[in-house]
């Protein structure tokens, strides 16, 4: 492979508005990918440095802005680390409220992923459908916490807002609708022969590689690695609820879709149980000051384990505060799952890990001379064309409502 610095610059404008900038440079030989280089940190925001300048009670608002989709998991992991360090016991009601918010977040995040995955392989109807059913979840979160994202509902010692009176029935009602649609979607995915042909055996991550790369979350669970922080190191109200960890042994993109859809159904079950059992009482305890010490907190975010390490020297600011988001360990495995793959499968393989949208947008294919051969739009088109080809070979209608017989 020939390194060519000028080709990297020419790839395209960076959108500083989108988070998690990453740049993938694929090297191809014919239709096969021979190498993949990942560059990150185009928009490093210095959260860990900034965190050292803020007080312990201000940091939840900062860390919830690390990721818009995981804006309940990061503050919860941080708060758990600080509570561990200060030896605080959180009231039960607050545990249930955090569980409900975190599971609602997982529902909307997984639905978002299913929609994007559909979009990448040309099923735009799925995209529209899931995003439409994701919207009521965001509305519920808005009614509970006051914002669609960046809920800002956890603080050291408990929660800020409870579930308002009369909200329980509304949550149950919306959940019934979402469950119905998710079940329909799951059946549609499991029954669609085109999807089986398109996604099975694509982007396989073996169990050995999953352990070697220490991947987390649904990405690990689809490769048969049975880990889930909610069960392994119980926090919030998860030990009080009845649910199961979904795993699949195959490690391909199809398994990832199935795991995410089934997890959405599990999450709906969990929220329903939590809402029905919601205890009442104090929602937070006052935490006066943070003693010197160190605490670790980890939370199962929709994409995997979110880890926070906080150390205090007795003042009101942390020194230091370390954050590890799940994508940090999930993204390097692209070297394991993409090399040797078909170029038309790369978009969906990269998307299957569920990094943020912007990750996959900043992508370019470099041919052997070091020139940019394909940009993201072209790769997306390739990915969709492959689906259409499979559909046509199987004599099936084309997906995405494009009912032309061309």
């Amino acid at each position, binding site marked *: 492979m020939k390194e060519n610095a000028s080709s990297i610059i020419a790839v395209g404008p960076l959108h500083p508005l989108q988070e998690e900038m990453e740049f993938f440079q694929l090297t191809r030989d014919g239709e096969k990918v021979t190498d993949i280089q990942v560059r990150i940190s185009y928009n490093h925001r210095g959260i860990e*440095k900034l965190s050292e300048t803020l007080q312990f009670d201000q940091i939840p608002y900062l860390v919830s802005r690390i990721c818009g989709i995981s804006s309940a998991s990061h503050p919860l992991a941080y708060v758990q680390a600080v509570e561990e360090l200060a030896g605080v016991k959180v009231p039960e009601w607050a545990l249930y409220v955090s569980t409900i918010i975190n599971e609602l977040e997982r529902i909307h995040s997984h639905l978002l992923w299913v929609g994007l995955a559909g979009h990448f392989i040309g099923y735009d109807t799925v995209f529209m459908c899931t995003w439409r059913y994701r919207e009521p979840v965001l509305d519920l979160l808005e009614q509970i916490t006051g914002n669609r994202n960046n809920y800002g509902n956890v603080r050291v010692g408990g929660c800020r807002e409870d579930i308002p009176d009369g909200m329980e029935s509304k949550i149950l009602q919306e959940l019934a609708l979402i469950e119905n649609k998710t079940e329909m979607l799951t059946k549609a995915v499991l029954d669609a022969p085109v999807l089986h042909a398109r996604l099975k055996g694509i982007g396989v991550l073996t169990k050995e590689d999953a*352990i070697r790369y*220490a991947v987390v979350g649904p990405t690990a669970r689809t490769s048969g690695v049975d880990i889930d922080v909610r069960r392994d*190191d119980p926090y919030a109200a998860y030990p009080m609820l009845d649910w199961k960890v979904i795993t699949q042994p195959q490690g391909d993109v199809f398994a990832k879709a199935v795991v995410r859809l089934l997890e959405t159904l599990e999450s709906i079950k969990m929220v329903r149980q939590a809402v029905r059992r919601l205890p009442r009482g104090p929602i937070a305890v006052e935490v006066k000051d943070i003693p010197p010490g160190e605490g*670790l907190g*980890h939370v199962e975010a929709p994409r995997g384990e979110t*880890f926070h390490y906080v150390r205090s020297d007795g003042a009101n600011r942390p020194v*230091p505060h370390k954050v590890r988001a799940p994508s*940090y360990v999930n993204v*390097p495995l692209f070297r394991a799952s993409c090399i040797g793959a078909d170029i038309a499968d790369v978009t969906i393989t990269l998307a299957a890990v569920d990094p943020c949208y912007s990750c996959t947008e900043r992508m370019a294919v470099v041919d052997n001379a070091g020139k940019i051969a394909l940009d993201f739009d072209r790769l997306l088109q390739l990915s969709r064309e492959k689906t259409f080809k499979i559909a046509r070979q199987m004599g099936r209608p084309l997906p995405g409502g494009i009912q032309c017989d061309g």
Partner: protein
Amino acid sequence: MVLDVEQMLRPVAEKVRSIRAARDRRWFVDCPVQYVVPVCRFLFEQVRLRFVISTGVDAEGCFEVLHHFCHDGSGSFVTVRVCIPDRSDPHLDSIAPFMPTAEWIEREIQDLLGIRFDGHPNPKRLILADDWPEGVYPLRKDFKP
């Protein structure tokens, strides 16, 4: 299930300075600088703990590097703590050659704290821009923006 870290670390006991349980399921293992690779390798390859992340700390009088490992069966964290007393030229043996996940975080610590990782397979910059001045490390205490 309760994890007995002292029992678990018996094969590398002479390479470890102290083992301390900070609280339930949170273990801290103090390790001398020269043994960080054998201890981490033992934890990762023999005990098969999951590597979570490393933290670099600009502590009083030394640089600390914490390698956090997670034992998923019991939900326990085992943190290998190394103190690097040499502040003028801090360096540590890299664990990335046998643990690909550690590759990014070691490059990150190298960028932000200036701790060199000996034997790293790809010791290029990760976080800082290419035109960032040499020898300026943003996470150090004496950094002035």
